[in-house]
């Protein structure tokens, strides 16, 4: 790349201010990563403060042929914010204003750098909240949520980001600023809003987001059911869904997770616990009581060791404590873990988990299973020790095998972390060349000139369909962190 950075840097500085252009080599190091294992150094980083500044930065980069990677808090788990081909990283962390809250219509307009949880905190005085609640919600930005179409434990009942975004103000590759969708619940024409959400920053840069807010539920009740067998717990999940109950969240942990959690936070699970289900129901007080009773009835069919319920916030927090502490606690079982993110049909949970167990037994690597079970989203964590020669490669291979299994039983490659760099080589497991070609043509449709986040989502290998290039592909996959 022949770039005249001596001219580009002052141009960017003139737009966003000298303090907010980062170009020293040692400073760029802190922008080479996100929450995934991938790393790549950007050429320069700018922190714009408005859509107009974003537009000017985009124009500068476009003129120079510099790739542009938008970045929120950098908490993503699939390498979406990693500047794979260098270029200009636009970090949106200065654009943190909540511009408007329309309480009556339950709409808010926010800047992309607003931290997910901050919005809910800000509108809680009106009894409202923003429903998508990724586990990184204390740190991740709503702009990042839009890019990755993030979910969270409670998306079972309330849906993912796209279901809560009404409109976006975006900057196109030519610097043009435009709203797609708006503050209304419908608008004419193609759903550009819907296509940009989840596009991992490859189509346009989002500069404002109109979101739908929900009313905080009147009551919340959490049920914790402990089973001695993982199969019983998975069957109970299918049983709950099959009985027509859609709780706000259904989370599940297996024996390994339980022992780690127990050691770390002393959650007080009974002796012999082989699986824990956490079910949360919210809504009208009466609905919560009736649904929890129904959930309890289903759980009782599967021979639980114990069932506990709580409505008081402090008591509920106790029930959640084991689940919330489990990932930090996995370090107690092994120095490293590889966290896989796939989704399978809920009716295939029992089978998938037992086959994962088979993989674990065959390879000798322990696999801890943590699941957003309600929507079939698995997070098997392969435990290994990178200091042992060959361990990392073996773990990565197992990760690939689990993803293949997910697709084989009718599932998908990623439930909530995105494809990014991490899983792009696996795309051919799910999609044909024709499927991917149709997807890829979105970029020219947005006239991106391929400057927005190039090298993401689609396989980079010469032959997309050569799934047997898995060995190379697996090298890309790696430990995610938090779910």
């Amino acid at each position, binding site marked *: 790349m022949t770039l005249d950075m001596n001219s580009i840097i002052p141009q960017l500085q003139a737009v966003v201010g000298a303090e907010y252009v980062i170009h020293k080599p040692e400073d760029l190091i802190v922008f080479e990563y996100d929450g995934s294992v991938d790393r790549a150094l950007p050429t320069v980083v700018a922190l714009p403060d408005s859509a107009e500044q974003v537009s000017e930065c985009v124009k500068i980069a476009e003129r120079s042929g510099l790739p542009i990677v938008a970045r929120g808090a950098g908490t993503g788990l699939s390498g979406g914010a990693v500047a794979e081909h260098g270029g200009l990283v636009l970090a949106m962390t200065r654009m943190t204003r909540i511009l408007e809250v329309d309480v009556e219509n339950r709409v808010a307009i926010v800047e992309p750098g607003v931290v997910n949880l901050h919005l809910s905190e800000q509108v809680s005085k009106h009894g409202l909240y923003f429903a998508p609640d990724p586990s990184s919600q204390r*740190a991740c930005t709503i702009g990042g949520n839009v890019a990755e179409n993030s979910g969270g434990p409670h998306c079972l009942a309330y849906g993912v980001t796209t279901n809560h975004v009404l409109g976006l103000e975006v900057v196109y590759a030519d610097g043009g600023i435009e709203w797609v969708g708006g503050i209304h619940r419908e608008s004419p024409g193609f759903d550009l809003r819907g296509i940009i959400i989840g596009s991992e920053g490859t189509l346009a840069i989002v500069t404002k987001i109109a979101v739908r807010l929900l009313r905080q539920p009147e009551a919340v009740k959490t049920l914790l059911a402990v089973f001695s067998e993982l199969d019983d717990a998975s069957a109970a999940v299918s049983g709950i869904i099959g009985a027509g109950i859609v709780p706000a969240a259904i989370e599940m942990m297996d024996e390994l997770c339980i022992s780690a959690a127990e050691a770390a936070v002393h959650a007080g699970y009974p002796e012999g616990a082989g699986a824990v289900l956490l079910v949360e129901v919210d809504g009208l007080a009466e609905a919560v009581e009736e649904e929890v009773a129904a959930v309890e009835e289903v759980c009782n069919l599967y021979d639980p060791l114990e069932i506990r319920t709580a409505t008081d916030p402090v008591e509920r927090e106790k029930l959640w404590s084991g689940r919330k502490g489990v990932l930090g606690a996995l*370090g107690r079982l092994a120095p490293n873990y590889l966290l896989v993110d796939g989704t399978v049909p809920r009716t295939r949970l029992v089978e998938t988990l037992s086959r994962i167990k088979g993989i674990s037994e065959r390879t000798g690597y322990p696999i801890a299973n943590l699941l957003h079970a309600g929507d079939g989203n698995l997070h098997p964590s392969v435990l290994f020790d990178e200091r042992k020669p060959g361990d990392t490669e073996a773990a990565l291979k197992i990760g690939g095998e689990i993803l293949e299994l997910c697709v084989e039983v009718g599932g998908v490659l990623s439930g909530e972390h995105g494809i990014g760099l991490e899983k792009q080589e696996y795309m051919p497991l799910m999609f044909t060349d024709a499927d991917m070609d149709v997807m890829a043509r979105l970029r020219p449709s947005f006239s991106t000139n391929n400057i927005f986040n190039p090298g993401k989502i689609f396989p980079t290998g010469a032959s997309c369909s050569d799934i047997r290039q898995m060995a190379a592909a697996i090298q890309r996959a790696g430990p995610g962190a938090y779910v």
Partner: protein
Amino acid sequence: MVEAKHGEARIAPDFLFSGPDAPEESDLYKCVHCGFCLQACPTYLETGLETESPRGRIALMKAVNEERIGMTDSVIRHWDLCIQCRACEVACPSGVPYGSLIEATMAQVERRRKPGALARFAENVSLNHVLPHQGRLKLLMSAAKAYQRSGAQSLVRKSGVLRRLAPSLADMEASMPRVSSTYFSAKGQTVEAEGEARARAAILSGCVMPLVNGPEMDAVVRVLARNGCEVVAPERQVCCGAIHSHVGYLDAARKMARRNIDVFSEAGVDAVVVASAGCGSRMKEYAHLLRDDPQYSEKARRFSDMVKDIHEFLVELPFVPPRAALDCRVTYQDSCHLANAQRITSAPRRILDSIPGMEFVELPNAGRCCGAGGTYTITEREFSLRVLNSKMDDFETTGADVLTTANPGCLMQLQYGIAERGLPAQVKYVTDLLDEAYRRERSG
């Protein structure tokens, strides 16, 4: 893990980590850069810059460790800007011991940093030659007291002469502690328990606190005695060494730690009670500081287990709830070294809750640092005030007339903030209020 070295030339060895006090590699790589720490970090919140975040600072440590970059001035700048509030440790799901990483890093920086700058010299003198010695410190304080009492201080402030002549000196003057009329001094004295003795506790006198907050230290002793504690103040104790390790003088800190371990171990007490959060956290971590010292590592572990923060100690006793009422609206600012390093957040609140008549109101973002950070308030004046400013904005929303906290650095910083804004509020220790309520019992 190591990528191509940056630049053509190899990095000079003194720009790299070396020696026994280098950041622990296994701790560095516990960080999986998930970013959960970002919103806990006061400097990140002020700037929105990854370079001023815990994750960014660790990434720089890793990069130096991997010899991809050296400790250039700009890299050091990002570490210097860390207040070391350790709020990131609480937010971290992977258990990265950031406190010990930054401490070790600052020790590396100290080794490499060119001395000579006046400020560095002054810091060195005060930390290595004054703070450890109560006598010298007392002498300095007397001079300060004379300065404040004589009216010269208000003259100097009014004239603005200092600010024009030497802005950084003016900063130091502005945050100069309000020197109290009485000193607390550890002379080996024993204060009897009221009623039947329930415990025997040694009290850390500390360096700055006994001089700046003499009356407040007296209050701590009274509160302990009122709750059936026999209190001893061993004479040969020294400064805990927190500020030294904060800026990378680890050997000096170790020297003081060994001395304190010896002195307090001889006192025959159930607990070593510490009223300053910064000192408490330092002393609880003597075990880590002396982990490689064959003679002291075991002693240090035993000692660390005996150290109790005053609030923690009172709640565990448990303390006697006061019967007399106080009429005020109070809020509480978590001291970072209590909340983040010692993970104590409910004990001070339980004490405040126990005082009849007082209205407690939670301070928004109470867990966010006030910007004091030991010497940070002097070395990074501008940034410290930015952080303080956000804190004062939050405080004003509470409508409280008393702002409580648990550490002398925080107390002074908050007093400065309140004076700057001219707010009709007082800053006190939690134990001050408890003491006041106990004393009212007697008078009422």
